[in-house]
């Protein structure tokens, strides 16, 4: 299979703390990969480094065989890497529909284009379709700030998908989500896979990840610990020691 993302020896230090150290892995196109590890293992920091929301101290990242160097986060999205956040980030004062419209197209980002052409019927139709997938279409003209926690999470996921990115990073998509909504999340991720997208997920909900992920990468203390299929990871003595504390 073709490698989509190739992370080589990335490191991040906060003062004396090595949040991520010499971390390397690769992700093939059109797979669902999980990232787990005990609290403080450096999972979210790794996400921040991959999406350039944090600058790395060392290492390089290749996406579709291109070196990403120091591109700003918004530029990475245009390259095809999008993400959600552990702490939900939506635009509470914008409507649900506007939240999605915002990441659907870049053609109106410059003020003068936005000023001259304002036909967004195509984008509106796409937004409606995407919102229907997570049952939010009824709320499309409400302020996003009025949504419940789970709904906000779904909205953030939809907004991320709407960027059209090839690689999508979800930071704990199942946390704090009730069972019916969790099924919606699963369906959404399976649809993405069916569309040929690649998904990288941080998650603490093990049954969810066991069901969804094809492979799981385990981190401990900022370092790569191991990588395998979910059934083997579950029984791996190194993983159990990392979570429960080894002797």
């Amino acid at each position, binding site marked *: 299979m073709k490698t989509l993302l190739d992370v080589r020896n990335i490191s991040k230090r906060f003062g004396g703390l090595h949040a991520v150290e010499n971390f390397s892995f690769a992700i093939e196109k059109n797979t669902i990969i999980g990232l787990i590890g005990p609290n403080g293992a450096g999972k979210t920091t790794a996400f921040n480094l991959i999406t350039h929301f944090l600058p790395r101290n060392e290492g390089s990242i290749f996406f579709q065989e291109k070196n990403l160097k120091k591109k700003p986060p918004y530029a990475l999205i245009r390259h095809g890497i999008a993400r959600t956040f552990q702490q939900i980030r939506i635009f509470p*004062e914008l409507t649900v529909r506007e939240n999605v419209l915002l*990441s659907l197209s870049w053609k109106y980002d*410059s003020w003068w284009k936005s000023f001259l052409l304002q036909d967004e019927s195509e984008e509106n139709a796409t937004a409606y379709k995407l919102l229907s997938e997570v049952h939010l279409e009824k709320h499309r003209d409400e302020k996003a700030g009025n949504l419940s926690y789970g709904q906000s999470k779904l909205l953030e996921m939809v907004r991320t998908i709407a960027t059209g990115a090839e690689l999508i990073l979800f930071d704990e998509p199942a946390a704090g989500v009730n069972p019916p909504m969790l099924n919606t999340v699963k369906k959404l991720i399976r649809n993405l896979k069916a569309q040929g997208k690649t998904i990288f997920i941080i998650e603490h909900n093990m049954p969810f990840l066991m069901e969804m992920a094809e492979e799981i990468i385990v981190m401990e203390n900022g370092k790569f610990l191991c990588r395998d299929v979910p059934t083997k990871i579950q029984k791996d003595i190194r993983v159990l020691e990392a979570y429960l504390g080894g002797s």
Partner: protein
Amino acid sequence: MIEYFFSLVIITAIWALLAQSYNLSFGLTGLFNLGHIIFYGVGAYTAAILNTKYGWGFLENIGAAALFSGIFAAGFGLLTLRLSGHYLAIATLGAAMIASVIATNWISLTNGPLGIRGIDEPEIFGITIEADSLLFVLLYVTVVLLVNILLYKLFHSPFGRLLRAIKDDEIAAQAAGKNTFKAKTWSLILSAAFAGIAGALYTHYRLFLDPTIFALPEIIVLVLMVVVGGRGNFWGAILGTILVIFIGELPRFIGFPDSIIGASRNIMYAALLIGTMFWKPKGLFTFFEKK
């Protein structure tokens, strides 16, 4: 009496434009920029200097003031927009003070504290329009209306939506693929260009310009107008302007002696701000919002 009323309408129109331009960067985009008065001043001085030294007319000066203020804001934005929140507020407030000092001391350009005199009244198609005449009111209200229509369109365009998103959560806007620095810079440039137009209008109305245009109280009045009306709401800035100017004129109506008009005006402004924060923290326009 009618002249007094006309002058009130003209002043309200100029301030409505200035407040609306401020509403674009401060209200809609959330840039806590306390130096907006600089762009107003740059526009005013551009018009005054071009008119007195080079004989440029009213309409050319409006264009030139917008252009100069916009270019000035581009440089200003590159220097300050890496800052945010209180840091941006302090840096831009400092810049306003510096602008005042420059206008006072660069005598060859601005004539310093003595100010620039002998500015021409607006002339349209060869007709000179006298201050505080009905024609003058019509001219100014038309210009302000036209610019406000542009601003209304901008507020409700996809670009306006992007600015609102940046105000809500800049990091999330980056995660949606937006170059937020570029959008903020453009917001400031456009906002400054419209403020520059307001400055040119001021110059051609007052026919005299001195460095007090950069004074701190002007900034406070401007913030007051936008906050009282409702930050980021198009109608809020207009409502805020009308209210603040009306309240500012009250002491005169009531017949307070001249010596205490200034102080009583400040007390009323403070009461208005506190009242708004207490009852309608999102601004008084919310009275008219559909539930």
